[in-house]
């Protein structure tokens, strides 16, 4: 199956999903605003700090997000390892983009927080992420701390749906956007599901050096 066709399908489906899901643009996302910076993501209304949560990484060690990624371009995504549809697409797309750009600051941090804490253990996170890119950081924490991090980023909390198909096959709702922290350690922009590899290849160099206007 040709890559181009799938790419067009993803774009068409993503566009349809967005159009079908709203009658007016959501207030949180300002796409036109991003264009003036030469970026294709969705500008946030407020510039947000990194959550002050201390997570646990895939080696079982404490991981202070702010300290570990200070001054570095950092992508953060909240997903879960049993997610068949959205998460693998983002992770693979971003990995491919990382391999295609040369950035002054080196490879950006890609941080995946497993919101399905019952199943997303450090070991399982590592196995899962390694299928995409060994450079990716996998994090876990208590459900309360993960919720706190998501609240600080003003994104919807994870929803664990116990119905599903029963037993281990429950479903998880989670934010589908990737939150980008530029080297100023603030999140000004997110990238929704449907962001293609080319979007990342185009935007990562600009994200590394963009000068954000102050919000008055």
């Amino acid at each position, binding site marked *: *199956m*040709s*890559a*181009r*066709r*799938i*790419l*067009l*399908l*993803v774009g*068409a*489906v*993503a566009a*349809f*999903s*967005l159009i079908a*899901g*709203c009658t007016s643009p*959501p207030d*949180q996302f300002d796409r036109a605003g991003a264009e003036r910076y030469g970026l294709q993501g969705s500008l946030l209304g407020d510039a947000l700090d990194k959550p002050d949560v201390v997570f646990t990484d895939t080696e079982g060690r404490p991981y202070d997000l702010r300290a570990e990624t200070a001054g570095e371009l950092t992508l953060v995504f909240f997903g879960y*390892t*049993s*997610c*068949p*549809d*959205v998460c*693998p*697409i983002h*992770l*693979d*797309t971003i990995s*491919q983009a990382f391999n295609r750009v040369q950035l002054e600051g080196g490879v950006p941090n890609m941080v995946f927080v497993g919101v399905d804490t019952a*199943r997303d253990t450090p070991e*399982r996170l590592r196995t*899962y992420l390694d*299928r*995409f890119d060994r450079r990716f950081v996998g994090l876990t924490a208590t459900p309360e701390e993960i919720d706190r991090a998501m609240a600080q980023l003003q*994104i*919807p909390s994870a*929803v664990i*749906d116990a119905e599903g*198909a029963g037993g*281990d*096959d429950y*479903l998880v*709702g*989670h*934010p*589908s*956007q990737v939150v980008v922290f530029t080297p100023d350690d603030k999140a000004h922009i*997110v990238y*929704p*599901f*449907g962001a*293609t*590899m*080319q979007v990342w290849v185009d935007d990562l160099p600009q994200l590394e050096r963009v000068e954000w206007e102050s919000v008055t």
Partner: protein
Amino acid sequence: MVIRPPLGSSGPRLVSRRRGVGAQLALVAVLVVALGACGTDDAADDDPSVVGSGVSVVDPVMPVPAGATGAAYMTIENAGDEPDVLRGVRTVTGEMAMVHRTEIAEDGQATMRPAGAVQVPAGGELVLAPGGLHLMVAVPDGLGVGDVVGLVLEFEDAGEIGIDVEVVGPGEVTG
């Protein structure tokens, strides 16, 4: 022409074929219309060798699963004059499989739900692609690129159609 996959094809009424890039790009236009308007009078294909009801499955693939479940994507075409309905899916081995739909809300929240019965419009198609409809399938550990997952799609009129879903590299669906 109906082209049977070279390896691993077995089971009743396996109908799938692969298309050239030009036809694929044309199909994109059709799929956008099909998604939005639920139907078009233009026959997607008047291939006389399509079986009986006119329903066929094109390019079933599953990106190699990284977890306990995999997502199968494909295009279901209906060359007939009557709409058909996809009622469900099962695996040939008895593992869990369901037709699911990812929904992304205004605030970005993604949830997956059972899709229920989904119509395949007459003379149109139903696309299962990332971020939308897909078949969620419980998969065994160690499934790798090149493996095949046998599924049976259950249609209201066309009945059961067996398909061999090829496991592909994750990059094949992300471009």
